[in-house]
């Protein structure tokens, strides 16, 4: 059995267009503070969520937009929440990091790793009240050094809970590259807890869909939890206004104010020997380029990847794309304050 790629692409594109609108509203200063987008994760989210049924639960991290849109939450109320409006999804009390929908059993958290215990609790409730249902936890690879997530892996295995742990691995924990922070291959670590593990290319929505189908089947049949590892990119970095992304996109404007103090940090008396200061200087100075070159390749964009499979029917594709764009524009027009 194969997924309906047209449907999945529509959902992914809707999420992308929606988040592009969020990006514009954020640029315009209409959304406060941090904004973490799902751009680049859409293939993973679409592939996993296509298997969910009413009564399944979603434990989300700080990138809840795409999963909630693809899970059927009203996009207008979601956008209003991002804008802090009173008729937002959470009446303006949550914001994009704390999105909740009781009727969809969907809960997010702004604390890295918290989706682990959350999924375990939802799965326990499912065992008692909704047998055959499951909980999905979404988190990034930056969460795998959090004790509560590791503890949740153990609890889910020890109690054979219906959980699908989905690790969206973009290789960067905020500004820290994976190899500086993670001691063992993630898949080995998950397997060490006794989780059933699969690794897939997160660009490839079909591959994710197939892996998620197996994981959710195991969960529903009472065969225990799984760990689905999927590589992805974050096209806008960790958050909108990511300083590393800005440094690469607008080097003159962004680097000038930090250049002087950094130079003084290299030349000032006292501190480490100057020779030893060059390594850290190079590390900090090149990190932006490393991040951007690892996250920006258009080949890694799940939408580009998925779209390639559909160009054979170019009329159908352009109709779909026009429809989705119009839908999102419509929502933005209704929501945007004067």
């Amino acid at each position, binding site marked *: 059995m194969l997924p309906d790629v047209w449907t999945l692409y529509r959902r992914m594109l809707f999420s992308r267009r929606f988040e592009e609108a969020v990006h514009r509203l954020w640029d315009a200063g209409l959304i406060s503070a941090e904004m973490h987008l799902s751009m680049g994760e859409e293939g993973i989210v679409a592939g996993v969520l296509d298997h969910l049924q009413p009564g399944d639960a979603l434990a989300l991290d700080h990138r809840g937009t795409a999963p909630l849109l693809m899970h059927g939450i009203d996009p207008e109320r979601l956008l209003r929440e991002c804008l802090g409006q009173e008729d937002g999804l959470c009446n303006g009390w949550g914001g994009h990091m704390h999105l909740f929908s009781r009727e969809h059993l969907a809960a997010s958290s702004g604390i890295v790793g918290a989706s682990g215990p*959350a999924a*375990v*609790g*939802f799965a326990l409730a499912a065992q008692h009240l909704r047998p055959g249902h499951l909980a999905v936890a979404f988190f990034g690879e930056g969460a795998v050094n959090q004790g509560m997530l590791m503890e949740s892996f*153990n*609890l889910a295995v020890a109690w054979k809970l219906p959980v699908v742990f989905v690790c969206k691995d973009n290789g960067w924990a905020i500004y820290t590259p994976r190899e500086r922070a993670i001691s063992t291959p993630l898949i080995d670590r998950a397997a060490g807890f006794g989780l059933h593990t699969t690794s897939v290319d997160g660009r490839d929505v079909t591959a994710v869909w197939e892996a998620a189908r197996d994981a959710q089947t195991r969960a529903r049949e009472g065969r225990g939890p799984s760990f689905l590892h999927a590589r992805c990119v974050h096209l806008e970095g960790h958050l909108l206004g990511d300083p590393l992304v800005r440094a690469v996109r607008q080097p003159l404007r962004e680097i000038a104010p930090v250049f002087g103090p950094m130079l003084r940090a290299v030349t000032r008396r006292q501190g480490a020997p100057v020779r030893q200061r060059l390594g850290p200087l190079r590390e900090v100075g090149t990190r932006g380029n490393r991040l951007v070159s690892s996250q920006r390749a258009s080949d890694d964009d799940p939408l580009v990847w998925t779209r390639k499979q559909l160009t054979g029917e170019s009329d159908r594709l352009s109709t779909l794309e026009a429809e989705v764009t119009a839908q999102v524009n419509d929502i933005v027009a209704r929501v945007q304050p004067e």
Partner: protein
Amino acid sequence: MPTKTYADAIDDAIAQAMQADERVVIWGEDLDMIRRNLYVRFGAERVRCTPISEGAFVGAGVTAAMGGLRPIVELLLVDFAGVAMDAILNHAAKIEAFSGGQWPVPLVIRAGCGGGYGDGGQHQQALWGWLAHIPGLTVVVPSTPADAGGLMLAAIEHDGPVIFLEHKLLSTVWREGLGRLGRSTVTFDVPPDGEKGPVPRTWMPLPFGQAAVRREGRDLTIVSVSLGVHRALAAAGELAADGVQAGVIDLRTVTPLDVSTVRDAVKRSGRLLVVDEDYQGFGLSGELAAVVLEGGIACRYARVCTQTTIPFARHLEEQTLPNVPRIVAAARDLLRA
């Protein structure tokens, strides 16, 4: 009226709730040992033994509650809230607000608290003020068997997160399980009315935020919770021998705080003495002074609290935790003016 111990009263109220409602479940470490009667009666699915993994199983309690269960999560000792603090501070307490009031978290976190049996400063803290500081939490601290059972039933029926703290000197399970451990060679200063007392045949939920006046007194108002109430009553007895009428108010819940009962009594007596086993700074004792001042009431004020890390040695511990001589001395100072 039958009598029960403080510990049995709580488990009895839990059993009544579990019998009435399939959604009530309890989990925590070693429950097949420490709550073995519940375990045998309701089975391993509803009385679930967890690994030592508070970060996950308290966090799981939050979403299990959101997913339709009425979980009681047993933290053993409130000191271990430190390990599970993210679940308590950032999730249990906040999700109802974050969801715009649409998604309540009917979770009970049950834990032993307090000292007086020589177990050191990581296993004997009170911490009710520290927890009550967080908006969104209800903090229940009963001092008698009847209150313990009735407030536990109320906690289970409550639609928000409740921290339920059982003093370890009052609870035979904890005092015997962590202090005595089968020996007849150790002694503890246990108030008999707190350890065992009359209870209703059928539990009814008691209201939160309603203090009990344990003793009337026109000269001085002593306000306390948990074990401190019994220490305050003992001190009031000593003061009565000198002709001083000290009233004693048992708050029963730290949040919600029964502000009006405290204000009314202090307005009449003109003197407020807080006995609080929790830490002195930035806690319940200061909060009580604040609400009295906010009520426009002028009074003399003193407090007997825990000021430092609780030391291990019994004689040092005895001086650190509020005790009857310290309360009597503080009361006499207040009256001298």
